[in-house]
């Protein structure tokens, strides 16, 4: 066995070890390489940035734990953008597992250990203000703070459940749920994920169906994101944005070019671009997990390309391209 044959038949555990090393080391040595934003991501950012408290957006958690490394930072970034600009947010999930991802995203954004967290006020806690007819965000914050509540150190602002967001969660047969929400959100979700009556929520009283909503972002690890185009964009003209995994991103360029989708975050890169835009515009104090993860992805891509080059060198230098079959260990 010559050197080229040995190279081609290298034990794959060495390759696994290499990937393991390049996946772990960048977490300890933060390179922080600059990321240039693309028009696909800027399209979503600019659109969300122009909305305010009179508007509302949907963030649909259409991904399972398997793709959360890519999809979760997208959802978290847009959620933080919306909370910063006081844009009401509806959160849905198209599968029971995805419901858990929605709760995990909320837990992260509301966690005091997260840099630039938001302080959540549960629906029941501000019922006296709601009953007194105070539902406007600015008036609510003044009344809430006059009542002796103090925003914790490091918090970016108050987030009132039922005013600033509604965690609607999972409902079965989600494509029909989207279709149903074009008529009434409350009919599809009489109660939210925490058991609160959605009809009592100011967010639902002001935005009764998808026609009263300005954007739906589907953070998706499957083709379910297309449901939003089929059942909401094409039926009532709701603007849609995609946050999809890197392998899926190539599939949805036709939707972008046709104008059916206002923008797309593709994979960890897309999420990192949104984090960069948030930080550059002073919406978050620093970039988050996606930006850190890009160092890992850079190192892994370089290693894979080196492996491809090495494999081709050995293949041609060893003269294996002249043989019909190459024996290897797979």
């Amino acid at each position, binding site marked *: 066995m010559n050197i080229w044959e040995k190279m081609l038949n290298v034990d794959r555990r060495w*390759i696994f070890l290499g990937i393991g090393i390049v996946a772990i080391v960048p977490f300890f040595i933060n390179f922080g390489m600059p990321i240039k934003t693309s028009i696909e991501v800027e399209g979503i950012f600019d659109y969300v940035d122009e909305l305010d408290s009179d508007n509302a957006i949907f963030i649909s958690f259409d991904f399972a*734990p398997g793709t959360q490394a890519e999809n979760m930072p997208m959802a978290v970034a847009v959620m933080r953008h919306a909370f910063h600009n006081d844009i009401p947010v509806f959160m849905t999930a198209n599968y029971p597992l995805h419901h858990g991802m929605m709760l995990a995203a909320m837990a992260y954004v509301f966690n005091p250990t997260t840099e630039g967290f938001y302080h959540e006020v549960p629906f029941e806690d501000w019922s006296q203000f709601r009953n007194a007819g105070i539902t406007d965000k600015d008036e609510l914050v003044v009344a809430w703070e006059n009542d002796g509540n103090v925003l914790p150190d490091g918090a970016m602002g108050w987030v009132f459940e039922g005013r600033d967001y509604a965690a609607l969660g999972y409902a079965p047969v989600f494509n029909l749920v989207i279709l*149903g929400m074009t008529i009434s959100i409350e009919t599809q979700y009489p109660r939210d994920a*925490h058991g609160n009556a959605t009809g009592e929520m100011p967010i639902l009283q002001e935005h009764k169906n998808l026609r009263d909503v300005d954007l739906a972002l589907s953070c998706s690890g499957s083709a379910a994101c297309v449901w939003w185009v089929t059942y909401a964009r094409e039926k009532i003209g709701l603007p849609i944005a995609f946050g999809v995994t890197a392998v899926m991103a190539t599939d949805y360029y036709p939707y972008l*070019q046709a104008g059916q989708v206002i923008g797309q975050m593709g994979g960890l890169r897309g999420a990192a671009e949104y984090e960069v835009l948030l930080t550059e515009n002073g919406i978050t104090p620093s970039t988050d997990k996606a930006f850190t993860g890009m160092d890992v992805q850079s190192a*892994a*891509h370089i290693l*894979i390309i080196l492996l491809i080059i090495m*494999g*081709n060198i050995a293949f041609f230098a060893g003269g294996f391209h002249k043989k019909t079959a190459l024996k290897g260990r797979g």
Partner: protein
Amino acid sequence: MKRTVPLMIVMVGGILMILQYFIPHQISQTVLAYYTDWTPIILAFALILGVGSLTRIHSHKIRRKSKNWQYSWAVLIPLYLMPVLAHIWPQSLGGGMDSPSIFHFTFMHVQVSIQATMFSLLAFYIASAAFRAFRAKSALATLLLLAAVVVMLGQVPIGALLGKWLPETGLWILRYPNLAAKRAIMLGVGFGMLATNLKIIFGVERNWLGGAGK
């Protein structure tokens, strides 16, 4: 009767749903509202069938001590335990779905970890597969290989450091050649779906009946 009734239901339901999509009238909206209410109810019966079937298959495996029968417990125990923990187990003992609860803990620290691990393994296998399979054996294979390398480098920050043209070329590949190919595939699939759906609605395609009524 076993064939005619399901065929009629599919035909009437299918045509009704096509028509209602294009009619923005109140009656049409009411039909849609009824349909969206009824579908999950009907599907709930399918869930009962599914859980029942899964239970039957795995309990048979356990009873007969078939190959790998021990893993059937790993299916059956969570299948019944998780709903009990979420909906029946008292909250004072860690029941319910919201955090803190056993259900929530199990989801976050078992389900999430297992799925994330499974997906993470892809990175290792893709690297190994790329090393062994990505060969410039022909002109087309070389083109594919070069496009892959440019897109891979263009997608990561280090690509921009190697050359400004890399991310720009990578995005050009995604925005134009990739888009054209994807659109062609999607149109083909779309027309195929349309033809199949029409065949099902009008009773030409009957395989979905599973041989009922023959």
